[in-house]
């Protein structure tokens, strides 16, 4: 499978990365090179093989359903949560207007 300029533009849009026309032109052969290279996996017979989801057997733990189970990630952390926000205002994350 290979990608053309329109497909790369579509992927970039899905990934929310603005790409200029010249960048797009440069990326098409790069991505096609990588995709052609990974095509080799088609040679491997994987019939009846379960896709691997965990390298080491592990069980999903559940913590007690209580408030502030971990004080570090519990409530009352507004200022710490907002400390690195580029446009925090009035205790909220600020974003450009989304409703016309």
């Amino acid at each position, binding site marked *: 499978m290979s990608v053309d300029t329109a497909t790369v533009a579509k992927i970039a849009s899905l990934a929310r990365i603005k790409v200029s026309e010249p960048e797009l032109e440069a990326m098409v052969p790069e991505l096609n090179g990588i995709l052609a*290279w990974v095509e080799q996996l088609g040679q491997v017979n994987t019939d009846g093989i379960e896709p691997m989801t965990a390298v*080491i057997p592990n069980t999903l733990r559940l913590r007690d359903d209580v408030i502030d189970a971990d004080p570090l990630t519990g409530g009352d952390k507004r200022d710490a949560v907002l400390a690195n926000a580029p446009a925090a205002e009035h205790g909220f994350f600020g974003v*450009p207007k989304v409703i016309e």
Partner: protein
Amino acid sequence: MSEITDLGVAAIRDGVAAGTFSAVEVAEAFNANVAAAQGALNAFIVATPDHAIEAAKAVDAKRAAGETLGAMAGVPIGMKDLFATTGVQTTAASHILEGFVPQYESTVSQKLWDAGAGLLGKLNLDQFAMGSSNESSHFGSVVSPWRRPGSNAPLTAGGSSGGSSAAIAARLAPAATGTDTGGSIRQPAAYTGTTGIKPTYGRCSRWGVVAYASSLDQAGAMGRDVTDCAIMLESMAGFDPKDATSLELPVPNWTAALVGDLKGKKVGIPKEYRVEGMPAEIEAIWEQGIAWLKDAGAEVVEVSLPHTQYALATYYIIAPAEASSNLARYDGVRYGLRDLPDGAGLQDMYAATRADGFGPEVKRRILIGTYVLSAGFYDAYYTKAQKVRALISQDFAKAFEQVDVLLTPTAPSAAFALGESNEDPIAMYLNDVFTVPASLAGLPAMSVPAGLDAQGLPLGLQIIGRPLDEQGVLNAGLAIEGRAGFTAKPGKWW
């Protein structure tokens, strides 16, 4: 006595405990080396001399009060800039996180401070740990302290933990943290004549570590020798309820059980690692390693890992897929860079921020990942890769029915010059050919320095072990270390 900065973790800790020198003297000596080398080597993104001194003062005070000292007491270390450190900028070597100051500490770094270590600074790396040469850092490439004889051409210190490897080799730090997703601890260690271990997936908490590919990312220890790595890894590892993939197991006392005698042990040599076009010097150092392990009492047998040749392609589907998902969090809203063009709406702001904030290799991997996870291609790429990954893992499981550890070269060459292989992404990916398979299977693996090539550059050997058998890996590493007698260090030119 040799200079303090020539000492490793064990020697510094023991020297501080014995009163041979104070922890503050140690911190001052390394702080001075960090400052003097920064312009030439660019190993650190941020130096934190005050932190190192404060931690050292605390250790000296504890000693004076007769209190018990931790396993890393008085040892100043470098921290890869992928670990969140409270109050100290954490960037993953990216523009998008430039100026990000975490409000919390990663589990691994906190454990090291609890053990008495101090922070010399945050080490440079490939941007978001994506790279094998450190050339993708937003803050400029790390330059290896090693050079080819008669040449000033800057060489790579490897990647992605290239700041870590350069700092240790240049005596800017006795040890450093690294992270390994496809070889990012082992390959830089091999390129710089240093030692590095990636433990079994799940041994070290990923909490507070900037995520690249979560099913592969694993923190590890880098230092001058096997013993130092064992000491440091013991301080870093351990169960953490804040990481869903953390293993709920006690941390063995690896240091106490270190032994270089391999009598009764079987070492496997995977025949598929004899790749076409392997340089004669790599072949020769591998043969030398086999002879050393035999000398240590091990029986050496050939084994087969038939799916080895597919590991890289598998990795370069899975890792970008996970990266595209993990890096979706950088949106210009909650932290990091925001690029808001005039009159832009929310979607435009996302796209502009991410275009400005990510480097070319990061964008490339996000796009590949987005593509292989997109509707209509998911099964053909991602599910297929996960199936091949299962086969690669089964190969190892079968081999470990016959042998205790595997011995391979760490990298297919010695360090290359900066700029030498960054034109073709796939040529760069091939650096990880020997390290990626163990990562895909979540196995513990380490690189130890084995010798120098004809140009005087370090070469490393890799040992891969069974799941949770860090001890077997460390012991085989110790056997090689004792026989290689690697004492070479780069001549000081910086």
